[in-house]
């Protein structure tokens, strides 16, 4: 009678093959996702240099832990969570080392490219300034939901807070932006919630 492969060995092989697949795959996805990672990182750090270091560290971490990515789930949510966790770690370390960041260096997210001459561009610029002026916790949910297109659930998983918290932060973020940029100015009841 043929002996069947013990489950442990089978699993071992299965795991390794899955890992080969997921790592090869993840490498490609990481490279393709770099612009999005930078955008999110810049909005977190508000410094392009710091953001690029953060992106690099996040890619390294993602490749080391490729097996923790569950196939069939959203790669972008997984990647952005890694990136954000690294940033939170850095913030904690900075706090214990004393404040280092020069607040005056915080600037509007689109950057000083000087290419926004037209009226329409100026309007968009003011939106990005309004986003930049949001509290960190509001800005990140706005980025994840409205810009990166994550669901509330996925965003809650990235940030590690209940879904209700995501929703209340997101609603406040959007009302703040509306107030700062004059979206929906004719509605007198905007301030209510």
């Amino acid at each position, binding site marked *: 009678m043929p*002996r069947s492969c013990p489950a442990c060995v089978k699993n071992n092989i299965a795991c390794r093959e899955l890992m080969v697949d997921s790592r090869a795959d993840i490498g490609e996805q990481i490279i393709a996702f770099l612009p999005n990672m*930078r955008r999110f990182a810049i909005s977190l750090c508000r410094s392009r240099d710091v953001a690029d270091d953060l992106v690099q560290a996040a890619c390294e971490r993602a*490749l080391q832990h490729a097996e923790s990515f569950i196939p069939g789930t959203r790669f972008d949510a997984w990647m952005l969570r890694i990136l954000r966790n690294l940033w939170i770690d850095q913030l904690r370390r900075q706090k214990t080392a004393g404040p280092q960041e020069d607040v005056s260096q915080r600037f509007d997210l689109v950057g000083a490219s000087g290419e926004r001459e037209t009226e329409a561009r100026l309007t968009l610029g003011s939106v990005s300034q309004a986003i930049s002026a949001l509290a960190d916790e509001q800005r990140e949910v706005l980025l994840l939901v*409205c810009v990166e297109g994550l*669901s509330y659930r996925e965003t809650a998983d990235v940030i590690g807070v209940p879904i209700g918290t995501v929703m*209340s932060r997101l609603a406040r973020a959007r009302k703040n932006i509306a107030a700062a940029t004059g*979206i929906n100015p004719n509605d007198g009841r905007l301030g209510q919630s």
Partner: protein
Amino acid sequence: MAIFSDETIMSYVDGELDEATSGEIETALASDAELRARVDLFAQTRLAAREALEPMLDEPVPQNLKALVEAMVARSRQSVADPVPHSATAKRVLVPANDWQRLAAAACIAGLLGVTAGYYMADGSMEPSGLQIAAADPQALFAALRTAPSGEELTLPGSAERFRVIASFHDHQQALCREFELDMADKTKLTSVACDDNGQWRVRFAVNAPEDTASYAPASSGEALDAYLTAIQAGDPLSADAERQALEKLEQRGE
């Protein structure tokens, strides 16, 4: 008139609201200008945020960052391509001592069919010191190995086992070898290599795996086979003509 919270209206705009409540909002929208304005706020802010940050995606990724990440990805692929052989699985390779065991160490040998000592003799009898595939009738198998061209499937006489030769080739010692498959009665597939050893067929390699191609075992038994074929420096598969000539030569020598 129903009072909807900001979160409810926002969920509606973001497509995250249940159908029943969405229906209520849609009904109310027809007659409620204030509700329309609130819906509008959440729709416009979503769009505005997206548009405002869209240009950041067009920003070229700094060359050094891109190069660093690409190098990381390449290194990671390399480390996966050369895994450390798994010692526990190495023990499962139950074929005569050969250095290919080392090569096949990472592969899962799903269970060699009772490989016992014995040659297939020219007359179909067995010599106790060679190798035998327990489930197959040696005589029928030997006859099939001697005559069946590659690519042809036949049923071994006296059994339900379907037999087909995948390819014939010469090993590094110029012995004629045949890779063949047997569909066993228990729905497993035996992949084997038998080589001519001075007029006797000797089973050099055998691996049995579930026939279900969706499982992982066939892929890893293929790995083991590849490792084995590499180790014996298997030549290219013979053409149909070359195969026929090689089998005829063997037959003449055996007579």
